[in-house]
């Protein structure tokens, strides 16, 4: 599909294909709210977050999911090669107004389908030394 970008060769199961740390700040949450249309105030108002018993303003789960795919997109070189993507939201990401939050993303090959020319890539996404996504998997195409 891609002429300009080199598609990587099929990896092996267990290969770590991408690693990245992303620094999240409150303005990133506001930007995502505007871009996605999700204006739930728990993602930008400390008073509202506190009133519903949260430890602070949280990143949108869909923002974490969106960011976590990007190292894989950059590895495969083409966003159109992501066929499937799923996550379970297991822990919230609290974004401090001054210091923000760091997300660590590690992408490892979990399965190869030689016939379909696809790979399943499993993500480990960590914030404050705890995983925040469960069963986070992409299926990418090499066809």
């Amino acid at each position, binding site marked *: *599909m*891609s*002429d*300009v*970008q080199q598609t990587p060769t099929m990896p092996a199961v267990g290969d770590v294909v991408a690693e990245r740390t*992303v620094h999240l700040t409150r303005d*990133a949450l506001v*930007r*995502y709210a*505007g*871009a*996605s*249309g*999700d204006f739930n105030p728990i993602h930008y108002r400390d008073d509202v977050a506190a009133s*519903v018993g949260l430890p602070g303003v949280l990143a949108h*789960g*869909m*923002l974490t*999911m*969106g*960011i976590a*795919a*990007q190292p894989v*997109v*950059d590895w495969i*070189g*083409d*966003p*159109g090669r*992501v*066929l*499937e*993507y*799923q*996550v*379970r*939201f297991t822990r919230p990401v609290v974004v401090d107004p001054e210091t923000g939050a760091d997300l660590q993303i590690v992408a490892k090959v979990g399965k190869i389908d030689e016939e379909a020319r696809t790979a399943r890539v499993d993500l480990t996404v960590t914030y404050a030394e705890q995983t925040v996504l469960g069963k986070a998997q*992409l299926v990418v195409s090499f066809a």
Partner: protein
Amino acid sequence: MNPELAGRVFPPVAPYLVGREKIREFSRAVFATNPINLDPEAARAAGYADVVAPPTFAVVVQEHTLQQLLAAPDAGIDFSRVVHGDQRFVHHRPIVAGDELTAQLTVTAVKSLGGHSMVTCDSVMTDAAGEPVVTATSTLVVRGDEG
């Protein structure tokens, strides 16, 4: 939550026209830097008609269908208690600027677990030719009183 929601098919929402600048705005918001997301020439060089949306972009369209569920008078869903449990996208082809997507929501499962309720629904998105583009599946957890 009303258990009889399971199996309900909502009417399709009004078609959503995917704009190039919307894809670029969404791409920046999810820290996407791939030129195929941002630059029409790079996208064309890679064989696409225009810029390609990030893998989670379909949530923008899916949101319109979930609003139908939350607003259904007999659903019994208290929005302030809703937590996003799971999310999945299955692409039949990438979303590209210029696509006109029509999305339709089907409730596939309603479950109760330890005082919480869970509703799973599929938003099936088709293009102007009626061909499938992406299915977005969400599980929403409605926390019980003790939550």
